């Protein structure tokens, strides 16, 4: 049996709605982006999902440091893994979209550069994890590093890009995706898509965590 099914069904329903509604519902007719404005439903949820998943990861890192229970370390690492995949997908889909909207896949836009830096900070987390053999030491050091990496995530994705001109919309003094930035009909698809992708990522991560729990059963004493 599938464990605790309802939120997995919700994730699938929300994503189906995002795929069907995202392609069929009306969108504003804007120059330059034209029909590619629908990428908002697919490219941006990668970043929002990544931020939620990385938050879960850092919470588990803190829980590990408080309890020294290795289960939290497994969770923290697994969520960071899923988060980095969402981030890489966000960067790649952004480059594909930018190739058509801005004329080049990489324009050294401030948000592109800082998003890449945020990903590199998290990639170092995995280098750190794989370089320490002792399980407890690995868990402790990587949990502390996770907190530092998380502390840089929101500055690099939200705060620092505001100090410079960006090709991305929504950076002009107001918070991104404020009332004026996104059309009301698009909001009806965008937010369900964010929730759907986030829940779907959580589902995949729980599979990995459960697999690791079986593998490391002798160490975990659960």
């Amino acid at each position, binding site marked *: *049996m*599938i*464990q605790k099914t309802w939120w*997995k069904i919700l994730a*699938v329903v929300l*994503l*189906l709605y995002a*795929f*069907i509604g995202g*392609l*069929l519902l009306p969108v504003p*007719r*804007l*120059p330059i982006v*034209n*029909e590619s404005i629908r990428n908002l439903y697919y490219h941006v949820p990668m970043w929002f999902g990544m931020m939620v998943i990385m938050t879960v990861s850092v919470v588990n890192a803190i829980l590990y440091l408080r309890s020294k229970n290795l289960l939290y370390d497994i969770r923290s690492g697994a969520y960071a893994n899923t988060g980095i995949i969402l981030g890489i997908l966000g960067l790649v889909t952004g480059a594909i979209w930018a190739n058509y909207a801005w004329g080049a896949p990489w324009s050294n836009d401030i948000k592109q550069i800082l998003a890449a830096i945020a990903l590199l900070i998290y990639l170092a987390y995995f280098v750190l994890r794989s370089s320490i053999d002792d399980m407890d030491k690995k868990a402790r050091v990587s949990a502390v590093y996770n907190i530092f990496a998380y502390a840089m995530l929101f500055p690099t994705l939200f705060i620092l890009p505001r100090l410079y001109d960006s090709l991305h919309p929504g950076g002009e003094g107001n918070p991104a995706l404020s009332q004026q930035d996104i059309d009301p009909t698009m909001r009806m698809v965008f937010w369900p898509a964010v929730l759907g992708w986030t829940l779907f990522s959580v*589902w*995949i991560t729980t*599979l990995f965590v*459960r*697999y690791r*729990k*079986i593998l490391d*059963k002798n160490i975990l004493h659960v």
Partner: protein
Amino acid sequence: MYKLYAFLFSAIVMLIPAMLMAQPNGPVEMADGLRSSGKIYVVVAVIVTLFTGLVLYIISLDRKISKLEKESDQSHR
């Protein structure tokens, strides 16, 4: 004379925003043909099929892991 210059200058200054606003106002090109011919539903059907297949695959993985969990619980006791 000075008043005339001032008037002309301010008139030109006031026109600048209007000139900046005057972008080509033709209809924005969208994929209307794809929609009216109904071919967009083909794309939607393909995406929904792909996603359904992936979800079924993840469900089967989920079930296999549940089975492993049960087995490892029994062997541990």
